[in-house]
């Protein structure tokens, strides 16, 4: 960043600030600028991670902690598909997503909440943001707040064709 200017009189003092991603306004110091650089050192080196997790037979709605192997900064977790060892339909939920783990749960419908058979859940983790894969495929990942009504989500990418959209309930 460069700034050029001139004044004829009085040498006014200037104090700058900066902000990243709508966060707190910070004093414009090399230390503060470097603090974002240091974050980068532990930031994402992984764009996408795939895996699966085996759940033992047990009570529905139990939360399982799944480790994340890759090095993400802001991981977005998508679950599915799910094996079909149990006959009851379930919803899959995610919560407590951190850089190193997330929790998942499969929940039967309220009128069927009993033990559920052992299942295997496949999952995909994508670093939040826009990425171009080696084959040219563009992947965009993000989160949004939603309720029981349809919520419009605008892409940040200009896709040439309608993209495939994978959504996941992430909730407390």
């Amino acid at each position: 960043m460069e700034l050029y200017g001139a004044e004829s009189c009085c040498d006014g003092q200037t104090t700058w600030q900066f902000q990243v991603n709508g966060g707190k306004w910070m004093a414009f110091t090399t230390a503060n600028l470097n603090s974002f650089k240091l974050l980068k050192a532990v930031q994402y080196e992984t764009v996408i991670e795939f895996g699966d997790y085996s759940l033992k037979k047990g009570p529905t709605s139990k939360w399982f902690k799944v480790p994340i192997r890759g090095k993400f900064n802001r991981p977005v977790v998508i679950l599915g598909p799910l094996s079909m060892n149990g006959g009851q339909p379930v919803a899959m939920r995610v919560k407590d997503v951190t850089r190193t783990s997330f929790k998942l749960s499969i929940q039967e419908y309220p009128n069927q909440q009993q033990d559920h058979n052992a299942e295997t859940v496949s999952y995909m983790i994508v670093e939040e943001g826009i990425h171009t894969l080696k084959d040219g495929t563009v992947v965009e990942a993000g989160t949004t707040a939603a309720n029981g009504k349809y919520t419009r989500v605008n892409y940040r990418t200009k896709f040439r064709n309608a993209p495939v959209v994978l959504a996941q309930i992430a909730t407390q």
Partner: protein
Amino acid sequence: MPRFPLQDATIFVRTTQYKSNVGKDFPKFAKTISNAKASKGYCEKLVPAMTKVSNRALCGRGATNKNVGFYYRVTFANAYNNAKWSFRTPTDFGLGGVSMMDGKIMK
């Protein structure tokens, strides 16, 4: 490992004598300011913070408060993917000024 080498942030400030209005030829003005040689009453420095920076605060004894041209150059690592950076850079450029990001005129 990080995907690219990360440099420490630097804030470079150069002041020089400048008397005329900046006008609309920003590239010419920018070139004049950034290439100006040091002269008495003005200086150039690497500073750790853009806090209460002025020519006199920067250059100390003998520094002038008249006809000052400023050149600020900040280099820093863009740490976040798709990050939105915002800056508040209040200045008193009565003769005009221009800001640039990655070589492009912003304002």
